[in-house]
């Protein structure tokens, strides 16, 4: 008796996680199963190497940046709660009328602003709230590898920062970033639907 079971009650804070992320019970069970499949040594948490093992992620040019987003503040491990919290950013936005949400409740993780914030911190390497020209260059370099010369990349980075920068400080803040993308259908482009 008693083999490994992904029984809901065995995970601590199950209800807290549900409320915080907004995932359905079925989705959370699936994600927990996925978490345990990725955790190869059954440690109970994920380390960088567990995520680096995913072949399709390693070939993604921004794979390392995405993995970094799971380990904020220099930590080296992420538990199930942290794992699901990041994935919750990609939960599709349900069609609820604006203004119905209770203003006292914290903003849901998959709101438009939070999705944009997630994309912003992929650019913002030192997490200082601004994308400098130097950071833009580094991220561009990740995306193109060795295919593009330094001058071409610099001119692209310069142009992009110039176009987005409104207060002239030579860097793109989060508000400037959001303004540039105000017409973008962020809700749809940054959403992943979990099958029932």
């Amino acid at each position, binding site marked *: 008796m008693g083999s490994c079971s992904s029984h809901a009650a065995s995970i601590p804070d199950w209800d807290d996680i549900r409320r915080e992320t907004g995932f359905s019970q079925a989705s959370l*069970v699936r994600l927990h199963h996925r978490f345990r*499949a990725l955790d190869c040594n059954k440690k109970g948490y994920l380390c960088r190497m567990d*995520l680096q093992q995913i072949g*399709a992620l390693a070939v993604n040019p921004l794979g390392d940046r995405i993995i970094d987003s799971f380990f904020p503040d220099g930590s080296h491990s992420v538990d199930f709660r942290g794992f699901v919290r990041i994935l919750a950013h*990609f939960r599709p936005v349900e069609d609820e009328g604006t203004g119905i949400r209770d203003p006292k409740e914290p903003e849901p993780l998959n709101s438009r602003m939070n999705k944009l914030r997630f994309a912003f911190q992929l650019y913002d390497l030192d997490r200082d709230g601004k994308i400098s020209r130097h950071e833009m260059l580094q991220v561009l370099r990740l995306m193109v590898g060795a295919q593009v010369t330094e001058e071409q990349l610099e001119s692209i980075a310069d142009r992009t920062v110039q176009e987005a920068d409104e207060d002239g400080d030579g860097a793109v803040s989060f508000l400037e970033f959001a303004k540039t993308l105000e017409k973008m259908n962020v809700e749809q*482009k*940054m959403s*992943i639907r979990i099958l029932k």
Partner: protein
Amino acid sequence: MGYWATLRMERGAKEKNHQLYKPYTNGIIAKDPTSLEEEIKEIRRSGSTKALDNTPEFELSDIFYFCRKGMETIMDDEVTKRFSAEELESWNLLSRTNYNFQYISLRLTVLWGLGVLIRYCFLLPLRIALAFTGISLLVVGTTMVGYLPNGRFKEFLSKHVHLMCYRICVRALTAIITYHDRKNRPKNGGICVANHTSPIDVIILASDGYYAMVGQVHGGLMGVIQRAVVKACPHVWFERSEVKDRHLVAKRLTEHVRDKSKLPILIFPEGTCINNTSVMMFKKGSFEIGATVYPVAIKYDPQFGDAFWNSSKYGMVTYLLRMMTSWAIVCSVWYLPPMTRETDEDAVQFANRVKSAIARQGGLVDLLWDGGLKREKVKDTFKEEQQKLYSKMIVGNHEDRSRS
């Protein structure tokens, strides 16, 4: 009976208001099969009002594509799920295959308990006895045959000793095997390739045909068996140091197949055990030799016992014990018609052609990924391809552009 057990569990679960975890076979997220270029253009189009021409440029929103693709792979990818045991739709009364095991009803538990009793106290000792007999007969028999002078009589005896002992081992595991198309069985001077799920594959194939094995020299019981069988017929065993030298391996195999009187070689080109839902990349070494290839597809029926050997989870002895305490091992073996390398295809293309044929026959998913991903990281060349595609979108094909 499996269906009844599952129905009972589901009904019990509904009564207690739990949500039973339904096993998924197709993946857990909805994916759109669009290319990098299409998706990034789509993203840009939805974000700006200006007309989209084809001039290469960079947009801040391009990052959304990579970000989402990356997250999708974290939630679900094709490879990781091949290295753990397959999940079943209905329960087969083995607690090891049920991830949702919880107390549902007295009747079911009693049934399960009875199953445990039968499997551990009745079947297991019987099987261990048979296995013991089979292995000792193999070692003793082949050693004795080895003393005979080379000739037809030795061959005849060797073949029958091998076959008999493997058949005893098959009984020891209670493997119920259905062979299809036996007319296509591998002949001398050829190479037999098959998909790999567990070490039992060897026993299953060898009990129906007389093969020359290829493998690394092991210590312990395996080593004793290896040393014994090679006395009776020429198997190809490599020292650990020789395995790294690909040319040496290829040379020895080529010499073997060139001799038409020698037995067909049995090789598993995936290089590692996969969980029998898919076939992974075949290593091209065996396909460079130039002999006729006889593909064989092996598919286990997971209803009676999961044969996949998860070597990172279980050692060999634990694995064999698990096999011997399952109900039975039911599998189908298809012998496919022989294939040879065409003049205009290279070894890799030939390997992929054989792999597709095996996957199609066995009803397995044909994957391009390398089974070595179980233990190592993927090569950087694949990442470069993505980077190349993206660079084209933002700077064009290295053409000079004058910017205002």
